[in-house]
């Protein structure tokens, strides 16, 4: 790789001519190849957030319970008893398209490191997945690889995977989304940060050895896909979850001592971003001696080592008198440990290799002069309201179709491949409640965890869609009885250089911000993934649906008070919230009419909050046997989900409202909850007293008299039929030959 460093090469590295001019100005000379590499990854979209930073600043990030908001490796919130929950979500979209298994697996590995690097033991993983159409021949392979990869990594490290979400849409055909979230627990007084300190302190490398993995992955993660994607293949990284497990145990053991001054995982752009960020945050300089870096391959250059994305590595600054303690711990866990540098007072990063200075860059300008773009935005034209839509199939047939549709069908095929019980603290497993519930070991505290986003809403109206995603996460936590605390997000969008995409981004973020404020639900960490688009052979590009995935975290003082969504016999079913029959962008419209049309349902954040606070209080009072929010598919789908989960039928008794039945049953009006209670009338009285619309929908079957879903018309849909329709999609799509049996 003996290329002259010039503007042409800079462009290949993803730097614009202006950005390159700025590099020249900072350096006062042409940069070396290694320096160019460092600039290009640090100034990539992935590391610098150059298109999104201006908007991200508008998100609310504080609350009395927030300990660390965005800016650290992960967000930190107070969950009581001196403990903190540390959590974050991150994408591995492009790698998962190129190599679904390794792409998804290393995505899980990366987000785990962001969390345990702060001193937290990871206790739960979630994943938000978007795949192309099931009709696309490539989709099956990607689903298979992604699900195996997430399971392969998470199961091996022994962190339970407890939740997530999955959508299918042709907009993701060439660009699936794999967003992984990890939640960990630490003592509030034992949280580790990444700002380096202490001139002369040793810089220590631990974990796996460095190879030529994923060189330029960070810039690749910011470049749109085209046929060249094939040529970029060798940049795929292979994960080693076994080493990750050892790394978790070794780091947590070391964190019991006072040896660590600062610590940071080596994520995208590996050694470069970790060393630059640690030194930059601490306002110190850093000298690295690459000859000391543990290497897996022979003849690696400085450029390659600085940009390698080999997995399962961490960088630490240690107290000099504690390096032996640290080394002994890493040796016990059979991990590489090497002192590869020291902190200096130069304010520069200086990289030496084989007796030569390969890079010498002032850290201040590298960080402060990172590009920041206020890219032009164009608004998305608002959708006309839907006119009246007919019901060509009838309520029963539509319900069966909806519960069996790819976006609504049982996800058991997926979660059955994820170890959801390891740790012995999983109170509600996937499918059992609107949010997963995990107890904090040794306490009664329960954490409620969910991921949510409805991309078709965001595509139709990004502001409403952004608010809706936050509101749905809040609602899902609330429906278990938990107090929502904070969110992490993963903002997946197309090419920010296109005004209409940037418009979606800006609007979605403003909708999110509005909802976060209204619901006291700040953003404490997150990730942005742009350039999610595919170039077709004819040169046109297809963007993904704008997908601001939200990961929500809530807390229960006593995990035993959490409620699930399974209906039980002999209960009244009460609907909280207003039903207007909004069919725009509904699943019904798509599955029955094949249309994605109209505006999304409006989000009334005041009502949302009032309803949620009411529901949470009822759950806290012990009045609620089961609770489920109304989302995709509307009211009847939500009822069917409760009935299926509890294997309990229900007779629905709903007076004609003047609304078309299909609009009533399948409209996706927001801010609604279904509560199964002993005394429906008392609940309704309490709701009315609080100024909240509530209505009894029916009564669940008596014990032992399981009839199915009985509609007001008298028609009955047996639970067996619903369950069969619900269970069918994934196994038939993914394992059409059936499992190989003896």
């Amino acid at each position, binding site marked *: 790789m003996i290329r002259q460093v010039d503007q042409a090469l800079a462009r290949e590295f993803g730097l614009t001519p202006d950005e390159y001019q700025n590099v020249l100005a900072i350096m006062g000379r042409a940069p070396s190849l290694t320096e160019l590499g460092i600039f290009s990854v640090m100034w990539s979209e992935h590391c610098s957030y150059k298109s999104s930073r201006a908007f991200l600043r508008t998100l609310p990030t504080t609350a009395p319970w927030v300990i660390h908001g965005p800016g650290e490796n992960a967000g930190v919130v107070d969950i009581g008893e001196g403990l903190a929950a540390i959590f974050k979500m991150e994408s591995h979209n492009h790698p998962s398209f190129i190599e679904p298994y390794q792409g998804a697996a290393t995505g899980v590995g990366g987000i785990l490191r962001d969390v345990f690097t702060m001193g937290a033991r990871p206790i739960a993983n979630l994943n938000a997945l978007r795949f192309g159409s099931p009709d696309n021949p490539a989709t099956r392979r990607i689903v298979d690889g992604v699900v195996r990869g997430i399971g392969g990594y998470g199961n091996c*490290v022994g962190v339970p995977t407890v939740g997530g979400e999955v959508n299918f849409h042709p907009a993701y055909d060439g660009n699936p989304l794999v967003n992984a979230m990890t939640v960990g627990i630490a003592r509030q007084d034992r949280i580790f940060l990444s700002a380096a300190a202490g001139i002369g302190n040793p810089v220590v490398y631990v974990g796996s050895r460095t190879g030529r993995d994923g060189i330029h992955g960070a810039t690749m993660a910011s470049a749109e896909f085209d046929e060249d994607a094939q040529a970029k293949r060798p940049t795929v990284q292979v994960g080693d979850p*076994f080493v990750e497990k050892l790394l978790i145990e070794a780091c947590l053991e070391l964190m019991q001592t006072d040896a660590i001054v600062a610590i940071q995982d080596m994520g995208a752009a590996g050694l470069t971003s970790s060393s630059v960020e640690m030194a930059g945050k601490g306002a110190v300089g850093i000298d690295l001696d690459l000859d000391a870096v543990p290497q897996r391959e022979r003849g690696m250059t400085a450029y390659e080592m600085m940009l390698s994305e080999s997995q399962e590595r961490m960088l630490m600054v240690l107290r000099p008198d504690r390096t032996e303690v640290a080394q002994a711990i890493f040796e016990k866990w*059979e991990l590489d440990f090497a002192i590869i540098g020291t902190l200096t007072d130069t304010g520069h990063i200086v990289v030496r290799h084989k007796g030569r200075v390969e890079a010498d860059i002032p850290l201040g300008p590298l960080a402060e002069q990172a590009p920041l773009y206020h890219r032009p935005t164009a608004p998305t034209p608002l959708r006309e309201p839907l006119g009246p839509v007919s019901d060509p199939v009838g309520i029963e047939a539509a319900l069966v179709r909806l519960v069996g549709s790819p976006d609504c069908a049982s996800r058991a095929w997926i979660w*059955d491949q994820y170890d959801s019980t*390891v740790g*012995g603290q999983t109170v509600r497993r996937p499918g059992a409640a609107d949010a997963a519930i995990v107890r904090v070991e040794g306490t009664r505290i329960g954490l409620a965890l969910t991921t949510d986003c409805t991309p078709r809403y965001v595509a139709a109206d990004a502001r409403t869609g952004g608010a809706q995603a936050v509101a749905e996460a809040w609602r899902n936590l609330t429906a278990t009885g938990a107090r929502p605390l904070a969110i992490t997000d993963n903002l997946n969008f197309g090419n920010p250089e296109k005004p209409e995409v940037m418009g979606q981004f800006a609007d979605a973020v403003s909708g999110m911000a509005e909802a976060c404020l209204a619901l006291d639900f700040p953003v404490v960490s997150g990730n942005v993934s742009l350039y999610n688009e595919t170039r077709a052979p004819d040169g046109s590009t297809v963007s993904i649906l704008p997908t601001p995935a939200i990961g929500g975290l809530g807390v229960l003082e006593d*995990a035993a008070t959490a409620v699930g969504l399974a209906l039980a016999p002999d209960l009244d079913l009460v609907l909280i919230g207003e039903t207007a029959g909004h069919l725009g962008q509904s699943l019904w419209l798509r599955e029955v009419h094949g249309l994605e049309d109209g505006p999304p349902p409006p989000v009334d954040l005041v009502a949302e909050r009032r309803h949620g606070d009411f529901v949470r209080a009822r759950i806290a009072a012990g009045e609620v046997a089961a609770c489920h929010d109304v989302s995709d598919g509307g009211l009847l789908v939500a009822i069917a989900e409760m009935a299926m989960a509890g294997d309990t039928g229900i007779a629905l008794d709903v007076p004609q409202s003047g609304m078309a039945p299909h609009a009533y049953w399948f409209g996706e009006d927001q801010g609604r909850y279904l509560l199964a209670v002993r005394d429906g009338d008392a609940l309704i009285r309490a709701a009315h007293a609080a100024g909240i619309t509530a209505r009894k929908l029916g009564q669940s079957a008596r014990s032992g008299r399981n009839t199915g879903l009985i509609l007001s018309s008298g028609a009955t849909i047996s639970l067996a039929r619903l369950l069969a329709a619900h269970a069918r999609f994934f196994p038939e799509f993914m394992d059409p030959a059936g499992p190989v*049996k*003896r």
Partner: protein
Amino acid sequence: MRAGIVVFPGTNRERDMAIALQGATGTQAVMLWHRDTVLPALDLVVLPGGFSHGDYLRCGAMAAHSPIMTAVRSFAEAGGHVLGVCNGFQILTEAGLLPGALLRNAGLRFLSHDCHLRVEREGTAFTRGWSAGDVFRAPLAHGDGNYVADRETLERLDGDGLVAFRYSDAAGRVDAGTNPNGSAGNIAGVFSRNLRVLGLMPHPEDLVDPLMGGIDGKPLFDGLVQALAA
């Protein structure tokens, strides 16, 4: 009952096991490191679940050669009780302390869900909390739980009553339809000849608390305490 739990690199269910044992004994189990060569005085050694050495090569193969396994073997030969769950079961078969082997699940996918187990042999230290024919629920979480052994071994296991548990349905029916992973004869757990070593794939230790969905796994631990209380 003094219990020790062996931690190998990659073990990940040692804390689940410690919690279950603590619930039954009221005392803390000792954590043992795979490189230890001597065991403290113990009534029970447990090899817990996980992915020892990443489950690379074959599940349990590398752990079976760990230094501590020499001590575990002597402990078993001297009549000590050993329990291996999931990866622990795989290690015990790889070490030759239990017959047979555990292959990739027949469906080739990792399986994580609750299963039902029918108790095949009562009255052992491990199963005295149940009667033969009892059915209990336990989570399973494995990619390689497909129990195989040659015909003579299977016949001997049957003939000598060394099958501990079989995968069944809630009513105790055992057939191909209740076999999650292809195991020969739906075998989920087996005993050594002296009935003092037990290996099983599912995780009773993850079902000992009503909050986690039930206490079906508790009789195993309560029974051990009764049998081995020193």
